[in-house]
């Protein structure tokens, strides 16, 4: 059962061959055992899951089942879940139990899905390796199968590892600079970051408000489509949510790709990745040509400015978003504060990890008097140029493709001493968030036994096309079906 996709599990449940309760028991049993070495979950909600499974079976009996009824999955621990700890991977929220659901949480609840727990992540979504989590690092199952401690990527490393290890068929995730796509690539799973505004951010703990977007992670494009059907949609509680119809993302998965125009940004193939990686990625692109697509080179002239712009804008927004964590109303509070200032300073000194503090400081600096124009304002102007590059590119092609990451999964500790080397992990993914366009990572091969991801980038609201392109690729390749041992 654990190898089945959401679509397959849905059919199993529909056929009556297995009940949701039985299915959930199986997944929980395996999860509890396997996660010892993986540490992909922060909280496992066994009782609630079984209760939800029971309710799902009743719904099915009453003829009210949806494709998701009774299907097990997990939420990245950044989505607020009513009555269940939501930690954001941080000591600051280790004891936080929200009395409300994120809209994404509510959507899955209404669809009848069964949440098995909350997955591990970089603290406050700041990171590319899940090593900064207060609850310890998550292991990449591919690394484990080679006897190595490798990172699953981040910040949605827990979701990616759990899906890769078949602990759940699907898990929600979020992407601010690459945090869905990069871990998906490193763990050999399929993930999608939708257009900014496509998925509600209400109840999704904020890191960088103009960049954060909730998205999907599963093993197949079809499962991603099923997830997006549940997650996407206008939410009046989120002022940045777009009021636009949600298509059935599964309906167009099988459209033929003949005539699909693929652009390869030359800046993303400029010798910033190993020959072995490039070979895998180009091999994947050749498959697309066999499917009828055409390929041409395009340019994103301001690509090299993306990381700099991002690491001004994201920390700036984060510095304000994280001001609410002060020990006053919820979450961690230092012991025996002497006075207000003492409570503020010690709570935040003790509650936040190093990378979070680093980014709050950078963000505060970039917004401060005398520096605002040179940093924040300038970065936003550069952002506009980066966005324009994509708009121009999409006049000539339908999608862009590139490697998702410059290298496969690195070892734990390899990039933690110099933050900038960690930031450079996002070199291919980050510009996408700045522009707000959607993008996916699709398993495209292996280098030294470690997965390689192909990034597919689309124009605003082109999720259906991306999923279609990914799905067709997955009909003629089997990278996405490989299982770590």
């Amino acid at each position, binding site marked *: 059962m654990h190898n089945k996709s959401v679509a397959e599990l849905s059919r199993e449940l529909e056929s009556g061959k297995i009940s949701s309760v039985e299915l959930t028991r199986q997944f929980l049993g395996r999860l509890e055992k396997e996660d010892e070495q993986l540490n992909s979950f922060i909280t496992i909600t066994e009782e609630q899951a079984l209760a939800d499974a029971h309710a799902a079976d009743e719904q099915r009996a009453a003829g009210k089942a949806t494709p998701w009824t009774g299907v097990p999955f997990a939420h990245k621990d950044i*989505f*607020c879940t009513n009555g269940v700890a*939501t930690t*954001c991977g941080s000591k600051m*929220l280790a004891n*936080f139990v*929200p*009395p*409300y659901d*994120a809209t994404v949480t509510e959507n899955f609840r209404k669809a009848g899905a069964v949440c098995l727990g909350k997955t591990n992540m970089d603290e406050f979504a700041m990171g590319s390796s899940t090593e900064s989590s207060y609850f310890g690092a998550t292991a990449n199952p591919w690394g484990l199968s080679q006897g190595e401690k490798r990172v699953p990527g981040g910040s949605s490393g827990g979701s990616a590892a759990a899906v890769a290890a078949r602990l759940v068929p699907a898990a929600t995730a979020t992407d601010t600079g690459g945090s869905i796509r990069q871990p998906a690539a490193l763990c050999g799973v399929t993930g999608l970051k939708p257009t900014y505004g496509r998925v509600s*951010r*209400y*109840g*999704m*703990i*904020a890191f*960088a*408000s*103009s960049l954060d977007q909730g998205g999907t992670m599963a093993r197949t494009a079809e499962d991603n489509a099923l997830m997006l059907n549940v997650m996407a949609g206008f939410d*009046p*509680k*989120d*002022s*940045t949510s777009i009021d636009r119809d949600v298509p059935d993302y599964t309906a167009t998965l099988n459209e033929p790709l003949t005539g699909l125009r693929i652009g390869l940004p030359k800046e993303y193939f400029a010798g910033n990745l190993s020959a072995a990686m490039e070979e895998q990625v180009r091999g994947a692109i050749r498959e697309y040509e066999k499917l009828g697509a055409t390929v041409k080179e395009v340019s994103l002239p301001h690509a090299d400015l993306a990381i700099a712009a991002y690491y001004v804008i994201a920390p*700036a*927004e984060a*510095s*304000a978003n994280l*001001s*609410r964590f*002060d020990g*006053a*109303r*919820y979450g961690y509070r230092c012991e025996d504060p002497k006075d*207000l200032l003492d409570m*503020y300073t010690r709570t935040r000194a003790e509650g936040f990890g190093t990378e979070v503090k680093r980014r709050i400081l950078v963000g*505060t600096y970039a*917004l*401060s*008097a005398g520096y*605002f124009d040179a940093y*924040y304002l300038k970065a936003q102007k550069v952002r506009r140029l980066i966005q324009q590059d994509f708009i121009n590119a999409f006049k000539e092609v339908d999608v862009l493709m590139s490697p998702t990451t410059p290298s496969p999964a690195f070892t734990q500790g390899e990039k933690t001493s110099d933050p900038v080397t960690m930031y450079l992990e996002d070199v291919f993914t980050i510009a996408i968030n700045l522009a707000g366009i959607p993008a996916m990572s699709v398993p495209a091969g292996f280098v030294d036994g470690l997965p390689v991801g192909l990034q597919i980038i689309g124009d605003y609201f082109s999720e259906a096309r991306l999923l279609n392109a990914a799905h067709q690729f997955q009909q003629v390749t089997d990278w996405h079906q490989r299982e770590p041992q």
Partner: protein
Amino acid sequence: MQWDIVIGLEIHVQLATKTKIFSGSSTAYGAEPNTQANAVDLAMPGTLPVPNEQAFRYAVMFGLAVNAEIERRSVFERKNYFYPDLPKGYQTTQLERPIVGPGYVDIDLASGESKRVRIHHAHLEEDAGKSLHEDFHGMTGIDLNRAGTPLIEVVTEPDMTNADEAVAFAKKLHGIVTSLGICDGDMSQGSMRFDVNISLKPKGSDTLGTRTETKNLNSFRFMEQAIAHEVERQMDILEDGGTIVQETRLYNGDRDESRSMRTKEEANDYRYFPCPDLLPVEIDDAFIDEARNSLPELPDARKARFKEQYGLNDYDAGLLAGDSKLAAFFEAAADRGKDAKLASNWVQGEFSARLNAEEKSVADSPISGKQLGDLVVRIADNTISSAGAKKVFEALWAGENDSVDAIIDAKGLKQVSDTGELEKMVDEVLASMPDQVAQYQQESDPKKQKKMLGGFMGPLMKASKGQGNPKLFNEILVKKLGG
């Protein structure tokens, strides 16, 4: 050394929307602490703001009422600082593109002249919670009910030159926002709060001096006092050769003291940036037109109408029209009869004096405009004397009876105005006081004669058991005494 005083005001106006500016919590005053603060107001993780359309409507109405340009694409910024009454650690406000642009308000000066006070801009922002320093054993209690209430902050140019002008402007603004119905104007509840920026410069100089800001004055009286206090403080420093420190000060009205809250050096760098959780708000012509069409009568228009409709003079019309509740009270009174001037005198006189003495606002008045109007009618038609009217007023105020006529009957205050009867009484009293009659008739100075009439009034009022119409008595006396 002669000094020019330069005053600018910043006024926080709490909007009377049903719910908060970015959340659905109620804004009703007086609830138990922390019962009107939801997850968004508490800045719980993942919560997001959603703008209140009515707040924008009220802001646009305000802009139209002060002759200002309306910003078609206004933006919210985050103003960052830490304080326990500010849950998010930033206040959502407007900086670069406030909803209301430059405008003006004309005020009436005591001299009778009109002066234009320019408004620099007005912007929307969220109020913070309340800090309660008493009752918590040396700690401070935080009530977040108020956190998120919509405010319009009105910023004037430094166009005022003395406390009278500042108070006149403040009252005019109060009249405007209450007339519009966008604010309940209850300053004791903090619905309007004033910050005063004051600087001095040598008389005639073009260079502005260093200014100080005195915050959170919540009455016209305190504003007046605070201005006088600060001007004196600055003058003392400057005349001693010192320099003014640019700072924010707090004024204590009960003790007539002020102290420094923070200096410019200690001031926060607020690190303003556009709030990424809120989109720019686009206001179109239709929205503005709808707001314009919904504008109720404003003080200036009401004043003109009072002059025309009720024949009031400029001063009376201005005073009564300025406050919408007072204006409504006056109109209810005046409409009961035909003597608007008399109604105006009673509203401005006895009624206002009584409100002031009991520290009540018009809204708290125990009598209605209609009741006062009925009283005025009975004075005008001579049913009661002015002495009797005062007694009726007291009885109405005390709630002895709702009806003016019932009170008049109960207290036997109906005065006798039958000239036949009165003439008889005068004849009788004059007959009983032949010496005083002779004195009167022999007196050549009319002023002294007038004073002597008073001597007959006592006996006449006694003879009539207090019910004789004193005015008529007077007329009859003069006629009969001749001379």
